[in-house]
């Protein structure tokens, strides 16, 4: 069980997404998950081991590391990717429910049934309209909320997106103020900016998809849609 599980779950939703949604999904997996797994994790791999403080005081390094990095960038990104992908599960569940209803109808042998066999129902693509429109739009809305929340959490916790070379620590048991040095600060800054930039692009794509869905609906049924 790893990121492939998430990919399998989201892959099923891809069929019923809009074009913008498909682009979003591609960017998610190539520029975020893959970069996280093959590159970012290596950069942050030795983060606590190579966090060095200018003291021999036992415990000072642990406490300073914990003070400046309450939750590691890597873990925050992993959580962000999981939470941002979760709303798509709503769409997957709704589609599964619609398929189940159609299978039931098919088995009853209704005259209005337009499918030849069960396999056709399984591979049918549902258009985003009616209740599915609401589910899909809600999922995009939640995605936006989660992305924004995590970006804010990053900014708040690390006072911006730059990784400093040196941090000054005076948490107990460190004697007075102690200089602590972060490992690979420049590489970490580059990756942080990259991941934030891709998050920004994903937010823009989600906003565009949201507007597209709204416009599509308002053009079709200007006033009567909500009644």
């Amino acid at each position: 069980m790893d990121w492939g599980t998430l990919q399998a779950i989201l892959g099923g939703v891809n069929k019923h997404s809009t074009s913008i949604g498909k682009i979003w999904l591609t960017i998610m997996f190539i520029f975020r998950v893959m970069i996280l797994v093959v590159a970012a994790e290596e950069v942050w791999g030795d983060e606590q081991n190579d966090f060095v403080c200018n003291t021999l005081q036992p415990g000072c390094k642990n406490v300073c590391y914990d003070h400046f990095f309450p939750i590691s960038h890597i873990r925050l990104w992993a959580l962000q990717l999981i939470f941002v992908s979760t709303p798509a599960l709503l769409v997957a569940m709704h589609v599964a429910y619609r398929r189940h209803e159609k299978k039931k109808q098919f088995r009853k042998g209704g005259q209005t049934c337009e499918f030849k066999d069960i396999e056709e129902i399984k591979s049918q693509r549902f258009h985003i309209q009616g209740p599915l429109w609401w589910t899909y739009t809600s999922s995009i809305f939640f995605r936006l909320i989660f992305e924004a929340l995590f970006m804010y959490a990053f900014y708040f916790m690390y006072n911006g997106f730059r990784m400093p070379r040196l941090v000054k620590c005076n948490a107990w048991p460190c004697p007075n103020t102690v200089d602590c040095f972060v490992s690979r600060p420049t590489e970490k800054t580059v990756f942080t900016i990259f991941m934030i930039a891709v998050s920004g692009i994903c937010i823009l794509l989600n906003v565009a998809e949201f507007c597209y869905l709204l416009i599509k609906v308002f053009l079709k049924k200007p006033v009567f849609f909500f009644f």
Partner: protein
Amino acid sequence: MNWSWLQELLSGVNKYSTAFGRIWLSVVIVFRFLVYVVAAERVWSDDQRDFECNTRQPGCSNVCYDHFFPVSHIRLWALQLILVTCPSLLVVMHVAYREAKQRKCREAEGENCRRLYPDPGKKRGGLWWTYLLSLVFKVAVDVTFLYIFHRLYPNFNLPRVVRCTEAPCPNTVDCFIARPTEKKLFTYFMVATATLCILLNLCEMTYLVAKRCWELAARRQGREQLSKPTGCHHCAQQKNQGLSTSSSGQAPFRSVPLYRGEGAASEGRRGSYLISVHSLSLAQTPSTSANFSPASFPAD
């Protein structure tokens, strides 16, 4: 063997679950398993190596770590995740048993063998009890592990420094835990998801029991309304073999069967479990997926 083996097993369980069960499974896989594998395991990876005590006494660090972390969070969560998913396998095994029984009967008697279960995956009779029991076990496992966590790590708290007086440490020694804040956050997250899973299981249990009570009440009401008594086992069997017309003269309906003393509402419409004298067409082969439309089946 790794977690993917368990994942494959669980995907088979999905077929026989209710809607609540599927939500529970999604929460477990996405918010518990996935978070555990991709994030939590890394946080605890340097647990003992970076547990530092303010002493040069050999063995003090080891003894203090063992005193404060008898079982690491990560191992407890691994056990919890394995045990919490096992009860679902009871349901899979019961369905497999039913299918094997039907297959054996068909092999023994050929085409003469009557259908023991129209749908082996439908939660009726023994399978309903197995499913309910699996929910009870899941709740019990999660509650037990939450209690164990609370006893081992009061309030699920991980302090930055712990004071250790175990031998061979001289007097009292300060020991510093690695990444306490990150560990605390993940602990709270895993406790929150476990609580959510408990609530989902309790909702599912309530839903199952309420649905069954509703069906039984409706059946009793329907029996009172029908002119002919339907309590007779043989009468019910005869009715089930044919179709009887309703008193209103509309399309046929299936009479109430008896299956090991339990009744089953015989409606095909989702959410409506009343036995009706009016017409409601029934699927001969009811759906195997979510338990939206219970169907009848002949008594043994």
